[in-house]
């Protein structure tokens, strides 16, 4: 089946949105039963669940746009690393709780304005998925912002851990708000917003929250990117091995 350029573009976009949600959900799921306190264990599992639900909506749309008969599950469990389009930020290792929380905060601060803007996408299906997901993202950002401020402006130890996590992860955040050729074409078609607008909203929220948290972002850090083009970090293969093992070892296995 041949697809139009516009369909290919939208396929690419649905993969980016879906893969961000899927890979972050997979990382968060690994905390289940291991979080420092019960409330956070439940919170991370619930955030993961929301993201997994959103993944299904995006990847089901991607599969339809592709028109090759693949399903959302096929895309999640049977694609190889180079075909994933998530930003590098979401695949970064869980590290300790500070790393996981900072990764979540940097992602949520992008996810909410992105989904808010996508509610008026020229693609009605994209708009519909964004309308469904946006309230969940607002709740996630509310939680991660609150915790970043409490732990940043907390004890000496919690502050040091949050600052180290920020130093390590800051360089990865820029990929979400730095447009490539696909992002520019999507913005021109009205499917997705101009990422410069999202970058401004992301910065406004992140800078204020980090200032309230007494944390300082690294200066002049180069943006670490590649995930949107399918170039992932070393740990990504291990993540996929765990996530895809069952379907690879037992093709078609179902509950």
């Amino acid at each position: 089946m041949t697809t139009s350029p516009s369909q290919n573009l939208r396929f690419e976009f649905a993969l980016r949105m879906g893969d961000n949600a899927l890979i972050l959900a997979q990382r968060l799921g690994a905390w289940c039963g291991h979080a420092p306190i019960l409330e956070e264990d439940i919170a991370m599992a619930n955030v993961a669940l929301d993201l997994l639900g959103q993944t299904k909506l995006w990847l089901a749309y991607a599969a339809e746009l592709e028109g090759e008969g693949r399903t959302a599950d096929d895309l999640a469990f049977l694609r190889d690393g180079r075909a994933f389009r998530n930003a590098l930020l979401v695949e970064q290792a869980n590290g300790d709780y500070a790393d996981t929380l900072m990764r979540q905060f940097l992602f949520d601060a992008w996810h909410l304005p992105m989904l808010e803007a996508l509610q008026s996408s020229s693609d009605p299906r994209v708009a519909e998925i964004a309308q469904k997901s946006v309230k969940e993202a607002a709740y996630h950002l509310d939680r991660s912002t609150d915790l970043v401020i409490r732990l940043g402006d907390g004890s000496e130890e919690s502050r040091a851990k949050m600052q180290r996590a920020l130093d390590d992860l800051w360089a990865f955040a820029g990929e979400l708000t730095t447009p490539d050729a696909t992002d520019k074409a999507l913005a021109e078609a009205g499917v997705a917003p101009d990422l410069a607008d999202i970058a401004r909203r992301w910065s406004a929220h992140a800078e204020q929250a980090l200032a309230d948290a007494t944390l300082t972002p690294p200066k002049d850090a180069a943006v670490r990117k590649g995930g949107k083009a399918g170039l992932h970090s070393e740990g990504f293969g291990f993540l996929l091995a765990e996530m895809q093992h069952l379907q690879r070892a037992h093709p078609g296995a179902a509950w």
Partner: protein
Amino acid sequence: MIALAVKPSPDEIRRWLEDVPDPEVPAVSIVDLGIVRDIEWRGDTLVVGVTPTYSGCPATAVISIDIVEALRRRGVERVRIETRLSPPWTTAWISDAGREKLRAYGIAPPVEGAPCAGALKPTAPVACPQCGSLRTEEVSRFGSTPCKATWRCADCLEPFDYFKSF
């Protein structure tokens, strides 16, 4: 299996679905929750439009199965469940009867403010479903299911689930 002489009306079917409980909060029905969006006959097939509460709610698949089974027991053999994403579900669609059932079950019903992004914190105090006290506080933003948060009452000291305004 009962053979149906006439097609039951959508209103009648809605009344039947009032007996289908939510799998995770069985005190309320799927109609009380406001997730049954539309019911219509298309030829010999009954189409039921259902909207998910949260996008990842694991009960969604079970709810579809429960609807099909409940309608088969009433003699409706050809049922198709369609997912409606838009407009997105909001707790404002929970019926008054549903809110009362939640409270009686020990879950504080949602306190509706403006149910939109960024306004998820209750705008009015959440009443303890056990003693009615308004001296309550949030313990955790999440709870036993995606739709609930964990709260406690400062008067009767009972912990309770709060069905988040969403």
